[in-house]
């Protein structure tokens, strides 16, 4: 057999049937569920008198709507409360394992899956959420699906799919101090654009990717969708196995050894051919800051807001519209942009390593008096507990940050955490779309270190020089 990519291997090993017209059925090993995209799917099952095919493949958690303060009380927003209670009721009715809002294991679905070992190498993983690409960090084929597909996977354990093209994004060399996986992700999107990966499954390779922790690899795969690719992935290696060993849903004992033996093959074969290849030099990547309303609108911290007069004609109108929305003047140095709020959290950057990195910057410092609010929202109850055991909560609180309970929070502002019109935020989340963090809110995407440093300074600063 000819040399295969990791994607080919994952696809082939999950192929149930392949029709001549290209449509295929692939088997799904893990189905993660949250409260926003599942109620209509459960309702569809009920109406058709169907049952989930394999409930043990499912793991549910409320994350998008949950408040990040006052968790002992009922959710005061009635619509949010109904959605969370509907998830509770559906999971109970259909026998699905759920980590409820006040369970210590609750958190953002893309944080808790890996944390529990519910995401394993070689799996197919789906969830009604586009950031399911995160789980590809474990050499899994993982992508977001719509609610009709959620119902389809529940009912049949399969997905109707078509094979994607493959793209290798190779990052060689060493990252400079203060440069993180988030900066790699933004630099890649800046290079290929938000539609650059459309129709492709991306495999991140190269020495800089191999050197990343699992947290870093998850950040990178998380944002594959922002490059247009439904799936991002990284080959399995010792870092992968060390992260997973002993986690509650991971195999144990002899079964663990057997699994690791199989997982060692989860990498692209030498000589495997990708449909597209993009190469970046890690040492050339600087801390990144987005300036516009699409993640591809990104520059180095040393850069300036672009001038519509100096971009190509087809981009001019988009740049002008973005600058107007963002309230920015052309040619403003990025370090000259002052911020109102800071958000450290989301499925991109709310794992323990992110908490540590931000706390390291905040240690012994105070947030700028001009910053109205700086939120730190850990990705799960377990991340929160670990951070508190390490004393990170105290560092944040002493610096003036608010230390919250886990959830999606201000990444998409479905709970009370949001920007007011015109407010400007340094955010570790993944999308800077118009209104994403609150109507009229202005989002700048950055790494946790950069967000913490911006909170201290009151404007963007080059954290690599701190």
């Amino acid at each position, binding site marked *: 057999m000819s040399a295969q990519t990791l994607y080919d291997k994952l696809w082939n090993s999950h192929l*149930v049937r392949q029709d001549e*017209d*290209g*449509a295929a*059925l692939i*088997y799904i090993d893990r189905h993660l569920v949250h409260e*926003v*995209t599942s109620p*209509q799917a459960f*309702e569809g099952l009920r109406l*058709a008198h*169907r049952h989930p095919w*394999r409930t043990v493949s499912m793991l549910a958690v409320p994350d*998008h*709507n949950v408040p990040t303060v006052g968790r002992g009380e009922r959710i005061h*927003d009635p*619509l949010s409360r109904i*959605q969370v209670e*509907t998830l509770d009721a559906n999971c109970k009715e259909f026998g699905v394992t759920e980590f409820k809002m006040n369970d210590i294991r609750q958190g953002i679905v893309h944080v808790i899956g890996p944390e529990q070992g519910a995401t*394993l190498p070689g799996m197919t993983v789906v969830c*009604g*959420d*586009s950031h*399911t690409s995160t789980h590809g960090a474990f050499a899994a084929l993982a992508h*977001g*699906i*719509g*609610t*009709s*597909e959620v*119902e*389809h996977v529940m*009912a*049949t*354990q*399969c997905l*109707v799919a078509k094979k994607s093209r493959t793209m290798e994004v190779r990052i060689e060399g060493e990252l400079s101090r203060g440069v993180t996986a988030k900066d790699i992700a933004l630099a890649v999107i800046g290079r290929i654009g*938000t*539609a650059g990966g*459309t*129709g492709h499954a991306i495999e991140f390779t190269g020495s800089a990717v191999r050197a990343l922790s699992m947290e870093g690899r998850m950040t990178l795969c998380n944002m594959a969708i922002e490059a*247009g*690719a*439904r799936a991002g992935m990284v080959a399995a290696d010792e870092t992968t196995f060390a992260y997973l060993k002993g986690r509650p849903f*991971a*195999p144990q004992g002899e*079964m663990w050894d*057997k*699994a690791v033996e*199989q997982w060692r093959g989860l990498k692209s074969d030498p000589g495997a051919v990708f449909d597209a290849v993009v190469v970046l030099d890690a040492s050339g990547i600087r801390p990144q800051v987005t300036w516009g309303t*699409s993640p591809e609108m990104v520059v180095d911290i040393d850069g300036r807001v672009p001038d519509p007069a100096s971009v190509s004609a087809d981009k001019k109108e*988009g740049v002008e519209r973005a600058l107007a929305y963002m309230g920015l003047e052309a040619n403003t140095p990025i370090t000259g942009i002052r911020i109102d709020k800071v958000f450290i959290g989301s499925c991109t950057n709310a794992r323990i390593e992110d908490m540590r990195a931000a706390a390291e910057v905040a240690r012994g410092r105070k947030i700028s008096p001009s910053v109205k609010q700086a939120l730190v929202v850990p990705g799960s109850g377990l991340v929160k507990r670990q951070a508190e055991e390490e004393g990170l909560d105290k560092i944040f609180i002493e610096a003036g940050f608010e230390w919250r309970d886990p959830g999606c929070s201000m990444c*998409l502002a*479905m709970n009370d955490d949001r920007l007011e019109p015109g407010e400007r935020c340094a955010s570790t989340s993944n*999308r800077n*779309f*118009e*209104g*994403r963090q609150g*109507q009229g809110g202005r989002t700048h995407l950055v790494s946790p270190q950069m967000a913490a440093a911006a909170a201290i300074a009151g404007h963007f600063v080059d954290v690599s020089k701190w």
Partner: protein
Amino acid sequence: MKKFTKLDALVVPLDRANVDTDAIIPKQFLKSIKRSGFGPNAFDEWRYLDHGEPDMDNSKRPLNPDFVLNKPRYQGAEILLARENFGCGSSREHAPWALDDYGFRAIIAPSFADIFYNNCFKNGLLPIRLDADKVDTLFREVEANEGYRLSIDLEAQTIEAPGGRLYAFEIDAFRKHCLLNGLDDIGLTLQHVDEIRAYEKRHLAESPWL
């Protein structure tokens, strides 16, 4: 699912690239546990001058007269003409639900985000990819001619512009078949229950930790 065979309808041009699903249906409307009723909030932040919340009476809200969907000449449009990377961002199926509920049956753009593209087919909404230069021509024509209509024939895979000019488009055979016949994926997949069971047995034997 609704069938899609032929459509002759008014076209509305939305001249922006990278229209994301947050723009198509803002997050506050995602708190519904139903599939219907999203139409009045499609493009909410662009369409209205005030801030929309789920419990509002949308008929009493101030419309943004500059937003293209609000222009009298485009009322009743069922074909949305859009730019590249339409539907990027979140996987929320609420986006096609909102477009469908608004009254759209087809969207024409140079490119679509993958998940959104997929979600359209599950809801009887036809997304058509057409080369950027052809989309450009359509934009110019629709803006220049009030009452501009296009005629889509899914069976023939063609769009007919005024004067009889035809544009051919590509679509997967399986998706076309499902749309033409209004077929529901789950029912179709369940015709292969034995194959799924056989695969599952083999797969779980090879990887018993799953």
